[in-house]
């Protein structure tokens, strides 16, 4: 294409989000008669998520695929879909984010120099550990779980009775192996690709977090596009979503099969009710304004 938009992603080449943005680039090229295309810089080549967000705001890069987590301290509305147990299931999350609530959240990005284009999947995050199968909240008590540097994650693990331990991702494998920590939490593909399943053979599908990912465009780039091209970008982004979900489902199934084949013990029939109830203090702390409260209610009211 004449103009290649630069897009950042922290995941490696071939990952569903990376492939989805490449696919979007192809669609965009068709829709704009070759005026616009997309070049994906995968594997965090241009920086970690927090940095790539700033770069997008400054207009250094054009597109950025990020988890909603790093936006929590920047855009208030993104806190809500990042709350534990806000979504009842992946289907519920799809309904909410594909509907008017998702549109409202996408619109909130504009005040921060970004154009929210679409949401992608990141599955559901669950706990895994090296010690024992976790059948109930009691089993979690006192166990050290690595979490990302995020207030919600720390409060959530504390509320469940665990010992939240922030730690760089690269040190998690050897830390579980040596016993610095007992486990961590993540979705199927990351549990598998990080190799953590080799050292943490107990995975409990408590599905505490279903945090969607988001594709944003720099407002600086956006403003330079014609109305026609802007529409093409929006369309191509939306059309990449079903493609991404298909890849995600395949990827999840492949990871699940590989992990199971390795002999990891999966606890899938856990009663989530006590987990959900334990989240009250987390909601009390983070859902403070009326705007956020109404957003929570609208999500919960979505069938």
């Amino acid at each position: 294409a004449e103009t290649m938009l630069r897009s950042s992603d922290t995941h490696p080449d071939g990952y569903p989000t990376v492939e989805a943005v490449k696919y979007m680039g192809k669609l965009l090229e068709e829709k704009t008669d070759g005026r616009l295309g997309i070049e994906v810089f995968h594997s965090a080549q241009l920086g970690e998520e927090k940095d790539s967000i700033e770069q997008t705001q400054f207009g250094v890069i054009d597109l950025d695929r990020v988890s909603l987590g790093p936006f929590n301290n920047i855009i208030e509305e993104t806190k809500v879909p990042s709350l534990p147990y806000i979504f009842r299931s992946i289907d519920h999350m799809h309904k909410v984010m594909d509907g008017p609530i998702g549109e409202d959240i996408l619109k909130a990005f504009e005040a921060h120099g970004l154009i929210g284009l679409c949401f992608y999947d990141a599955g559901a995050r669950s706990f895994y550990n090296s010690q024992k199968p976790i059948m109930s909240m009691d089993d979690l008590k006192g166990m050290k779980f690595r979490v990302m540097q995020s207030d919600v994650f720390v409060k959530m693990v504390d509320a469940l009775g665990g010992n939240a331990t922030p730690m760089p991702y690269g040190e998690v494998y050897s830390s579980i192996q040596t016993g610095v920590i007992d486990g961590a939490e993540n979705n199927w593909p990351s549990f598998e690709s990080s190799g953590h399943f080799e050292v943490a053979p107990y995975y409990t599908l408590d599905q505490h977090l279903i945090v969607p990912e988001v594709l944003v465009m720099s407002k600086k780039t956006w403003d330079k596009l014609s109305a026609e091209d802007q529409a093409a970008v929006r369309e191509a982004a939306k059309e990449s979503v079903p493609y991404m979900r298909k890849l995600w489902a395949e990827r999840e199934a492949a990871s699940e099969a590989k992990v199971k084949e390795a002999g990891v013990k999966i606890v899938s029939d856990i009663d989530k009710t006590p987990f959900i109830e334990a989240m009250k203090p987390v909601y009390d702390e983070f859902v403070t304004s009326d705007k956020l409260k109404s957003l929570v209610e609208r999500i919960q009211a979505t069938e």
Partner: protein
Amino acid sequence: MTTFFLILTRVMAILARIALALSGIGLVLMTAFIAWQVFGRFVLNDTPTWTESVSVLIMGWFIFLGAAVGIREGYHLSFDVFLYLLPDRVKKVLHTVSDLVVVAFGCGMIGYGVQLADATWPTTIPNVGWSGGTAFLALISGGVLLVLFSLERLARRAAGLVTARFGEVELPDEDR
């Protein structure tokens, strides 16, 4: 030395000493925080969640302050092989170009540091609660010292006094 240089050198030496002292305190504090993190996790089974972020912030302070003092004391790594081949007069001109380049970079640290701090001021640092903009204060302060110390070098060279360089000359003790 003229009175002007006596006062200039005195003031700059004090600034450098303060920067080094702050950096040293930072290093010792950082040691204490990370030791506390290990102790909390291993012994108390309650991992402090602020130690990592706060230590990283402190590290920024002593890197940028230390790097600025390094300009004054001339301990930055540099490639001096080519310079040996040149006559002293040319060398002085090139050193001056170097110092001007560093001044420009220091100005960038200040100006763009302020821009970054401004852009990230409404955000918060997870598990610490401070503004995200505080992460750039070290960069800005380091930039200020960098510019001041480079200007001191330019002034000293113009007046025929020594300026310190890695692997070559050190600042005389009375000027440190």
